[in-house]
């Protein structure tokens, strides 16, 4: 349709209004500038009591939403190495329960996340939860370790262990505590309060020529 014949120009530019010999605007060879200068400046914003009140409402609403439990923050990123101080720092509650109580009758059943019990009582063997395999395993591991330790330590530091285990069980990740329990010796001192100074002066073996401040 563009003209099969040689030399025949079927589309005459005059139709669209561009006369012969008239200069067209120069073709652009680069993308348009990011902030092109405006010929017409924009009209100023509406001001007045109503506009200001709505502005204040908007900002307050936004601030309020951030404090409500509907604002979901992603789980804290896992640190590269377990830090000693993690145990005493208040980590954000990464537990899986919602902080607000929806009316579950109006929600599909599958969205319901079972809440964790605040105190995991190891005597209650069958906890009716939507079983996640690791959790069941954790309880079994707790029980096994406890029975083993009780046998080893012959009840000498039983009370201490009991007290220590309760706060440890409340934490979401149990793996760290198990490692510590395995490594502790038979002492009267509570291992968690002991700092064996491994992190201090670790560079003393290297480069003695460098001045130490």
């Amino acid at each position, binding site marked *: 349709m563009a003209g099969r014949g040689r030399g025949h120009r079927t589309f005459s530019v005059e*139709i669209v209004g561009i006369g012969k010999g008239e200069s067209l605007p120069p073709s652009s060879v680069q993308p348009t500038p990011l902030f092109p200068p405006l010929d017409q400046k924009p*009209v100023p914003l509406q001001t007045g009591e109503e506009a200001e009140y709505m502005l204040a409402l*908007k900002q307050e*609403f936004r601030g309020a939403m951030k404090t409500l*439990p509907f604002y*979901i923050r992603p789980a804290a990123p896992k640190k590269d190495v377990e830090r000693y101080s993690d145990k005493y720092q208040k980590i954000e509650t990464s537990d899986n329960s919602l*902080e607000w109580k929806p*009316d579950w*009758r109006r929600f599909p059943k599958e969205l*319901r996340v079972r809440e964790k019990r605040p105190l995991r009582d190891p005597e209650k063997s069958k906890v009716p939860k939507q079983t996640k395999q690791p959790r069941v395993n954790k309880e079994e591991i707790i029980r096994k370790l406890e029975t083993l330790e009780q046998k080893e330590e012959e009840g000498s530091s039983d009370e201490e262990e009991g007290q220590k285990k309760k706060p440890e069980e409340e934490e979401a990740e149990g793996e760290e505590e198990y490692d510590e329990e395995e490594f502790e010796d038979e002492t009267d001192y509570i291992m968690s309060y002991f700092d064996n100074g491994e992190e201090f002066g670790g560079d003393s073996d290297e480069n003695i020529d460098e001045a130490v401040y």
Partner: protein
Amino acid sequence: MTAQEVRLCGLLLQEHFGNVVEKVGTHLIRSGVLNLRALAHETKLPLDLVKKSLCVLVQHGMCTFGAGRRGPAGPVEYRINCEHVFHMLRYPRYIYTAKSLYGDTGELIVEEILQRGQMTMSSTVKTVADRLTHNMPEGQSMDYSEVVSVFSQLVETHFLQRCPPLASAGSSSSGAVDTPLPVATQPTEPENHPDCYKLPYINLTGQGKRRRSSEDGEADQLRYYDCDDDCGDDGIYWQVNFQRFHLHFRDQAIISAVSCKLDQSSSEIVRTMLRMSEVTTPAHAAFTQALSANEIFRALLSSYNIARPILDQYLSLLVDDPMEFVGKTGDSGGGMYVVNLHRALANLARATLESVVQERFGSRSARIFRLLLRKRHLEQKQVEDFAMIPAKEAKDMLYKLLSENLVQLQEIPKTPDYAPSRTFYLYTVNQLPTARLLLQNCYKTVGNLIERRLYETKENKRLLEKSQRIEAILASLQATGAEAAQLTEVEEMITVPERQQLESLRHHINKLDSSENQVDETIFLLKSYINSTQASH
């Protein structure tokens, strides 16, 4: 869903509910309908976070769920209601309207329900009474009954409605028949429920409690959410009826247009007519029910001081006006008049389009645009003649409008082969597609505004945190009664250039926020026009 709409939805979800909900929501919008497992798998988020996000979205009415394609036996499928997400832009306007109609109590009721998504009447009343009591001088407190009466008024005028019940009843308390979940593609309309606006009988007496400073913030939250004492309305949740608010905004727009075009008295007459037909007119009707002049005269408030013959004159003026706000449909009862809702909305949309062209391209381009709107199809030569603009400039303006897609080119061939020398090229403007184009531009604008605001906040994060800490220190010092010298010392921790920077940052953010509010007004107008046109076809 266009790309701009998806982007805006994502930004709004992120602002109000955080990044996790944004990721879940955006993915669900893009995919249409998904079940839980697929959603968790595709977003690569932990299952619990996905469940939490969906709970939040369902609570706020932005996500609906139902039996999926495999029927009731298959997994539940979820879909996002994008219109609901866009309503979040308009929340300040809803709250302000409630304040102007029902005072501070109404304002707080609507604000609480918007924040929580759905609430029972008793918990709303308690929360609002506590908040009002908090602001009252010492010794006074807000009685529950006052809040209940304002709540009832809001329900009677249909600004609040009950949340639609689910067809599936897992609980025994409601005693409903165990029917399968409705199909996800057909959400139950809240209006279909016969008890939609019926107030429950609750026995709730008491007064708002003043929050003591020693009370823990958490304890308050628990009290809000664990309404253990059953007030008799368990399971009945209320939500904001956005459609009713939109009808109110539409009426306001029409009334202000009439008062601008004609005068105050005619706008009062139109306001009366609209008020009378509030309950009788369905939502997307093209015009209201016919009202006789006698009825209008009786319904006019005496404060307007309009005599009967004056009213007739005003009505005939309104009918003869080229904007066609009011139409005459008969002569009985002194003349039967209707308000032409659809035509009014079309005129308002047209005025918006013309205004946009004028502010963007200048008044002469706006003249060409108006000309094309009125005369439909014009040739190049005719445009120059009718607009009285020299040929070269007219050409330039036309091409600029054409490149922005505000004006279209229509080819009318004289011969079966579309030979250009024997074809008419006509310029034309179609109002509906142009309105849609501008609506998408508005969505893009709001997205840009939000992103710029987030960028500004992020750039100055350090400074903002510092100022927040200093304010906290100042507040605690003042609470413990420190001397003025200490206070000034703390205040001076922010240097003067930092203070200036903070001030300019605040100014920028305020400007961006007000711009969002204003663009939202345009979005509302254009969207109403588009919906009204679609409904009338």
